[in-house]
């Protein structure tokens, strides 16, 4: 197999995703687990970039890492006595293994033929899709750039966008006040 930079990047992101994923479930410190989850999700974002889906990658970073993982960190910090897990394994390990194996086989036998059918070269397919879209100019399609501009122009959505940030500030302050114990 020829060693291209794409392959190297893919391998890097794959190791990052799977390795951190493994650390998420094996780490005994819950806080570390969440940090590894963030790395794993970042690897997935990298895979999206390789699949020529930059918007999906950006959303992955913003929503999963920026919002959901940070939310988990807040919840862990605000809750008492969940920082460490005394038991890493529970009684359902056999069931989990079977489920994982079935899922893996399903992926192998359903998705691999599908990928072969498409032709395997995703970048090529994407290029064709984009070329087709260019041929049909009356199809409205919004680029990431336009989306970004709409958020910050005066005649766009800047007002609700800014108010949302105020709303989130209030929600965060409120969550901390409601969850934290009063000091004596």
């Amino acid at each position, binding site marked *: 197999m020829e060693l291209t930079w794409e392959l190297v990047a893919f391998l890097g992101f794959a190791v990052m995703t799977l390795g951190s994923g493994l650390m998420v479930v094996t780490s005994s410190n819950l806080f570390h687990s969440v940090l590894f989850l963030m790395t794993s999700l970042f690897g997935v974002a990298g895979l999206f970039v390789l699949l020529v889906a930059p918007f999906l990658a950006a959303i992955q970073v913003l929503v999963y890492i920026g919002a959901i993982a940070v939310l988990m960190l807040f919840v862990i910090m605000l809750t008492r006595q969940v920082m460490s897990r005394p038991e890493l394994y529970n009684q359902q390990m056999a069931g989990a293994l079977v489920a994982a194996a079935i899922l893996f086989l399903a992926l192998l036998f359903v998705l691999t033929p599908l990928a072969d059918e498409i032709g395997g070269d995703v970048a090529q397919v994407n290029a064709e899709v984009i070329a087709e879209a260019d041929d049909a100019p009356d199809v409205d399609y919004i680029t990431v750039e336009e989306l970004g501009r709409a958020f910050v*122009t*005066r*005649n*766009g*959505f*800047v*007002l*609700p966008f800014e*108010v*949302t940030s*105020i*709303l989130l*500030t*209030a*929600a965060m*302050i*409120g*969550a901390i*006040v*409601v969850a934290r*114990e*009063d*000091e*004596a």
Partner: protein
Amino acid sequence: MISAELANNLLAVAPEILLTLVALVVILADLYLPAENKRITGYIAGLGLFGIAIATLILVPANQSLVLDNTLDTVEEQLLWGGMIRSDDLARIFRVMVIFTGGLTCLMGMGDRRLNYKAEFYAIIVIATIGASLLSAAADLVMIFIALETVSISLYILSGFIRLPVTPGQEAEQFAMRSAESGLKYFLFGSFTSAFFLYGLTLIYGFSGGHTNIYEIGQAFGAAGTEGFENVVTDTIPLLFALLMVTVGFGFKISAVPFHFWTPDVYEGAPTPVTSYISTVSKAASFAVLVRFMLAVFSPEELLDVATSSYSEWWVQLFAILSVVTMTLGNLLALVQRNIKRLIAYSSIAQAGYTLMGVAAIATTQAGDGAASVAFYMFMYVFTNTLLFAVVILFTNATNSETIADMAGLSRRSPWLALAMTLALLSLAGIPPAAGFVGKFLLFRAAVDSGLTWLAMIGVLNAIVALYYYLVVVKVMYVDRSEDDDVPINIPNPYPLVIGTSAAAVVLLGTFLITPLNSWAEAAGLDLFRLIS
């Protein structure tokens, strides 16, 4: 040098910018003030909001700005920030109302010792007020939803604000548990109805052919089928469904029957200043957006340039029916209440019912007195309820009780408090010289003028029923005797200011200020009838 257009845009959201600054100052001040001076943050928030309310009254341009020259004449000029908000008199009257009442609530919060005088309380009240203020002006589906959520989410937090006390005590723990329960109930009901509301909004967005501005949507619905509006959905069932979904969202916020189930429990459990805020600011801002939304999206035929179809008849009927059910059920259930906060909860449901009468009257009369009566009624109602709750807080602080029977002898323990409470109750009952009389008169007149005489009759009958339970409280305060008759009730700072201001407002709005406020409200009502062409 900034352009005139930018200046107009900035001035239109000046109240919100200033409110954000106040919220930030409160949070920062809390960090740096020594523990014994933290109460100052309450004064910063309260007095800051008073200042902003006055600045809004004078500065923010509309048709009759008191200071500035650059009045915005056409609807297109009033639609700012890409049509997100409309800076008109309706927005201004409701903004002044909610910001001023927000300030009163902050000062009220300083006297409720169960809140522990936390600065976060004032900061979140100020942020909720930002939402309420934007809601009064919102003219776009996106803006309406975000402003509504800013109010709602802040209030979910505030309802559950009372923490378990550091030093154990049975009564204090009970209050904390009830507060947590009310916060959770409010959140569950609220997020559920928000989902309905959002679903309704997306349907309207889709049916209109992809507009988010409510005035453009109204135009599209009116002109459906003509050139440029071919893909607008006009089928009855889907549109009616969307209207009902949206009504669920609004109905929850104004606690109209049958979306009122949360009201008594949340009112009873939440910290009393928060209850006051829910019953005044949140309700007033929701009425503002309700009248604006309905009139713009489902406009009456006469207001549209091109009218192939009109749907205003639907919501007029819908709100007339909601009004009857809401006021009747609210008043009947209020008759049997023992707890003063639950009594006010049912009374506030009934008051929402009266106000819905004005909403139903809007579309059929073009004089603008339907919307004007809603604005006037809400203006006097927010002060009346604030006055009522301020007295309830002092009473609860002194007796650790919220039962009506325990108010016995209040007139001997504190004559001024009893007088203030009586004034508020008379205003709610609609007896002159309190402002409630004028408010009810305007609502009934608007209903009769728009051919809804039967609705006005039911309203009058309801007002008579309501008189009974309001007067029972007055009787308990003045006639009944209690063991503590000679123990005076302490009125700490800044309560003289809160009670004095709102009592003065209730009396003045019922006497000398009727004409100025009514003409302002009528200007606001007329503004509402001008749509884009």
